[in-house]
């Protein structure tokens, strides 16, 4: 326990790095997958290949991506860019399906009304389709955020892993405490992130909170 007190700076440093490495890919992934998903609903032949590709990419073990990407990008292995690119790829791979499913979940009659009212295509997507797609997209967002937070620590194998470095530290010194601290903080981070996302989702979908009217008015 004294270890914790002695190493607060280290812990904090790793936590910050961890957060950075986990959140940036989520944001980048979202920025990429939403327009991409929209295009896939516009040109529906794209949808299935994209989802399939995403499936394949997501099945690749993270450590493999952390190593293969430097080879492709020409960056050094020990660079945070690799981690971020790899996790962004994962994020897009998973989210693309949710974005497509979410946009497709907009009822046809809602879409028709929007068109009839006079919404231009892009405006309609932003004002009507996306808000309705939020629940489905957020389901994926929650999964991918938690998964990213968990995967960052794998980077410790090649030397950059946020809280994961506490794991390797503990292992090298045959000392359980740093490992437990790392695991607990990682779990807490995931929990907090999930709670924030749920709150954000509720904020973005006020209509979902209102209970159905009770009884009928004669």
């Amino acid at each position, binding site marked *: 326990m004294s270890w914790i007190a002695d190493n607060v700076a280290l812990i904090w440093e790793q936590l910050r790095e961890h957060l950075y490495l986990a959140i940036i890919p989520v944001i980048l992934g979202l920025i990429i997958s939403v327009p991409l998903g929209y295009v896939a609903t516009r040109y529906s032949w794209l949808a299935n290949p994209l989802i399939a590709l995403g499936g*394949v990419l997501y099945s690749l*073990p993270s450590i*493999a991506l952390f190593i293969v990407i430097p080879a492709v990008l020409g960056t050094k292995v020990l660079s945070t860019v690799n981690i971020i690119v790899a996790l962004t790829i994962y994020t897009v791979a998973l989210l693309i399906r949710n974005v497509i499913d979410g946009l497709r979940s907009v009822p046809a009659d809602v879409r028709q009304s929007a068109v009839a009212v006079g919404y231009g295509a892009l405006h309609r997507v932003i004002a009507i389709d996306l808000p309705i797609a939020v629940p489905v997209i957020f389901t994926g967002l929650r*999964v991918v955020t938690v998964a990213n937070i968990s995967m960052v620590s*794998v980077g410790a194998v090649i030397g950059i892993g946020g809280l994961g470095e506490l794991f*390797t530290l503990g*292992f090298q010194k045959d000392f359980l405490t740093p*490992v437990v601290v*790392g695991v607990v903080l990682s779990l807490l981070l995931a929990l907090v992130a999930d709670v924030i996302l749920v709150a954000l989702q509720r904020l973005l979908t006020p209509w979902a909170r209102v209970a159905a009217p009770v009884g009928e008015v004669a």
Partner: protein
Amino acid sequence: MWQYLTDSYNWSGNEGIWARIVEHVWYTFAALGLAAVVALPIGLRIGHTRRGAFLAINLGNAARALPSLGLLMIAVLLTDQIGFLPVLIALFALGVPPILASTYAGVSGVDPATIDAARGMGMTGREILTKVEIPIALPLIISGLRSATLQIVSTATIAALVSLGGLGRYVVDGLKLRDFPQMFTGALLVALLAILLDVLFAVIGRITVSEGLKIG
């Protein structure tokens, strides 16, 4: 970059590429088998009786947040050993939740009207499970096994850090020696293995899942 992979010397012998591949596959299936043997019956039971659903759902979600490397380290430090045993424990712990959650989701998701019809026409509880619930739940059960396999293959790779064999050895050893071609070999092979296993499950799914469930 491709030097290590293409050097035929590296393919032979006890520490050669073939050997490592076989090791890795063995670790994966051992852990998967163990996890499935435990998680499938529990998932089936919870899905059929609907008791304990809380556990099945939340375990699945919570486990996704577990950092696999951390779990490995804890297992190693607690058992005070390195080698396969702690790794197996960690892999098992990572494999159970997805199988349990998906199996539960699959079985409990069977249309209650279908089960009512089955009961009403005189099927015993066991017959309902084997002839109705499991076949209909099969797509989800297989997807749970698939997820678990992915997690296990991935974690078995990084287990090389705790002296395990398998394809992770190339990554870890290569890192130590600053031998990038070796690292790349490990990464590439693991990626290919993962894709291969994923395709295998897809094929199994196609063969075993009834056509009637794929419509619409």
